[in-house]
């Protein structure tokens, strides 16, 4: 029975409203005790957390792991290593792989791969993500799917989207909507505005996102189903969700660190690492996203970790696939731009990375409650570092944060009671899904 004692850290558990200097005892994979001074026998590892933040392991509900199909960009194993390196212990893996995750066997494949973090499959809404026929949602749910999404594109047929919401309501999990009207976004690559005009890049209007958000909110109202709007990027989308929530609709939404940190002026460099979908938006949109995070309209921060190989990204801006990696910079970007930026205090920011995203998918994670699975993220908040490509554990390095200074270093990550990433020793290569009671012994560096 493995017992880990984390001593003397600033324990912040937003789910419980805890923010105090405390000890945390982990026993047999679960949180055993959180108290002022814990005297425990038979502790196998003691982690000195003096001066550090002890938070629940982060829950990232929007991640692309590229397996199956694009293992040169990322695998479930490498992506999960990146996750725990960034303090993320639970990831929801999007189904736009090749082939897409649209059958029970593919859901089981994703869930069963060796991984350092907890990897939960999101299954496709429609077969092949073609927007024509619903997947067998009930069977997919039984196989382990935690949500449904055709992420990467919208379900264009409104009637089909309505049926998807209706059916998902029966199955009991949310539909995660990628809101984009391709007729409006066209083959655009940059937010419509002065920057796209100056750069000569094909524009994507805010309306391309907002008309679909509006449609899906109306359909959520029609069906009473749980709708989760992915990667909200515009002021108009935030306002639409705000109004829908005020009307009592069962709607949640997420944004990503780049949408509250970077503006569309970044495209003037033609650096393909800032090509994302939806595109980086205007300063006004960034401010609206920050306000949405502040007032609770936006429920979660997700990385939309989208790895692409160097070869795929090192091309002309409009030829590069959209997306940036984000699992490892999720927390430092949040600390640097939301907490240091005066938008949110630390507990509120951590809530958006832990129990609130967990709640969207109905997961029991993102908390340090006694009895819960022991997922812990220990952070040194005092250090700032200039991000270098070699620092990433992800197979891909497509990050606009390379060369920029960010605050906060994840020093230890514990997943299911196992130390899976630790400073100095780096990640331990641990596989919690295969440990206690499931086989593998770990080398602990703490």
């Amino acid at each position, binding site marked *: 029975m493995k017992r880990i004692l984390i001593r003397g850290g600033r324990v912040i558990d937003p789910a419980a409203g805890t923010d105090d200097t405390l000890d945390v005892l982990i026993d047999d994979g679960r949180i055993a005790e959180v108290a002022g001074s814990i005297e425990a026998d038979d502790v196998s590892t003691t982690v000195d957390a003096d001066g550090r933040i002890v938070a629940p392991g982060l829950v990232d509900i929007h991640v692309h792991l590229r397996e199956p199909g694009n293992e040169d960009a990322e695998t479930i194993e490498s992506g999960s290593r990146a996750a725990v390196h960034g303090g993320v212990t639970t990831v929801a893996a999007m189904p736009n792989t090749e082939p897409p995750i649209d059958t029970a066997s593919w859901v089981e494949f994703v869930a069963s791969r060796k991984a350092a973090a907890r990897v939960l499959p999101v299954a496709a809404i429609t077969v092949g993500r073609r927007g024509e026929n619903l997947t067998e949602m009930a069977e997919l749910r039984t196989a382990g799917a935690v949500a449904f999404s055709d992420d990467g594109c919208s379900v264009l047929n409104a009637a089909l989207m309505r049926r998807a919401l209706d059916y998902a309501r029966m199955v009991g999990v949310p539909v995660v909507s990628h809101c984009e009207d391709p007729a409006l976004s066209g083959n655009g690559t940059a937010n419509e505005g002065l920057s796209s*005009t100056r750069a000569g890049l094909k524009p994507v209007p805010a309306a391309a996102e907002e008309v679909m958000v509006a449609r899906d909110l109306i359909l959520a109202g029609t069906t009473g189903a749980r709708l989760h709007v992915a990667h909200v990027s515009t002021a108009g989308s935030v306002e639409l969700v705000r109004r829908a929530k005020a009307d009592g609709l069962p709607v949640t939404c997420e944004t990503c660190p780049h949408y509250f940190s970077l503006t569309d002026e970044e495209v003037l460099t033609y650096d393909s690492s800032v090509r994302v979908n939806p595109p980086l938006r205007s300063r006004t949109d960034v401010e609206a996203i920050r306000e949405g995070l502040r007032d609770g309209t936006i429920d979660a921060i997700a990385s939309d970790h989208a790895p692409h190989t160097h070869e795929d990204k090192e091309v002309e801006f409009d030829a590069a696939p959209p997306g940036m990696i984000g699992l490892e910079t999720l927390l430092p970007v949040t600390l640097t731009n939301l907490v240091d930026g005066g938008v949110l205090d630390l507990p509120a920011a951590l809530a958006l990375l832990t129990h609130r995203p967990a709640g969207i998918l109905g997961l029991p994670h993102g908390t340090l409650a006694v009895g819960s699975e022991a997922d812990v993220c220990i952070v040194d908040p005092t250090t700032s570092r200039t991000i270098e490509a070699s620092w990433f554990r992800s197979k891909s390095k497509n990050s606009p944060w390379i060369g920029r200074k960010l605050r906060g270093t994840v020093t230890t990550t514990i997943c299911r009671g196992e130390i899976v990433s630790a400073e100095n020793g780096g990640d331990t290569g641990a596989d919690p899904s295969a440990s206690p009671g499931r086989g593998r012994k770990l080398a602990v560096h703490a």
Partner: protein
Amino acid sequence: MQWTKRHLLGLEGLSREEIATVLDTAAIFKEILGRPVKKVPTLRGVTIANLFFEASTRTRMSFELAEKRLSADTINFSASTSSVKKGETLRDTARNIEAMMVDMVVMRHSSAGAPHFLAKHLDASIVNAGDGTHEHPTQALLDLFTMREHVGELQNRKVVIVGDILHSRVARSDVWGLKALGAEVTLVGPTTFMPAEIEGMGASVSQDLDRAAEDADIVNILRIQRERQEGGFLPSLREYTRLFGVTSERVAGMRDDVVIMHPGPINRGVELAPDVADGERSVILEQVTNGVAVRMAVLFLISRVRASERTEDAELLAEVSI
């Protein structure tokens, strides 16, 4: 001498002095082009690659002629016969060309920012010959040169640019250049052809050509691509011509000394009536002539910067060896 740049990627950010340096230098080359022997040895030993990833006849011929007049060695690369179609990346293509010890690259590409991409990866100097809908700096410089020949200094001059501003790299470069030289620029065209927030570049916008052009010194007319109608930007070319086509009746409402320009090729009878294109206010063919002189000036000025870098390197090496 105000020119210190080793690339010409666009006119955005260029100073009045830098643009004036190019135009003054072009005037010297234009004089040379009028001589019986039109060739100078200025770029002897310099190798220039013309990389045209997108079809272009006029710009390419103009650059090639400019290079030949300066006695540069040139190699040509066009997408239709290139390895791009075999899947080679832009960077690989460029690195191969650089491995052939090319000094300068003249590049036309359908992607905005493609020349910036190359400039980041190559030691060779890059001259943007048009990148997507971003910029076409040498076209704008020849426009400015032609304007200056006809109306003198451009400070406070009124310039109207009419047509498909949205898809026009020429319009963007013209606006940057004209604003740097102190001109007032009005962009005229249907609302569907106006890029978002273009006023942020310093130009005003109008949908009333007659009013905008009534006191203009210069009217620069852009080509309307016929496929834009199918793209839903225009109800019909007929309606476009009625609202924005430059006809002799319209020109009659403009100043007597208005200068009519067009970067070519012209859709006669669509954006420009044939009698205006060939009329006495038109300077369209002069623009073509000036294009060679301006491109000679750009290549010359950049080669001077490269030569001075080499001199500095040599001096540094000499110091080190002492």
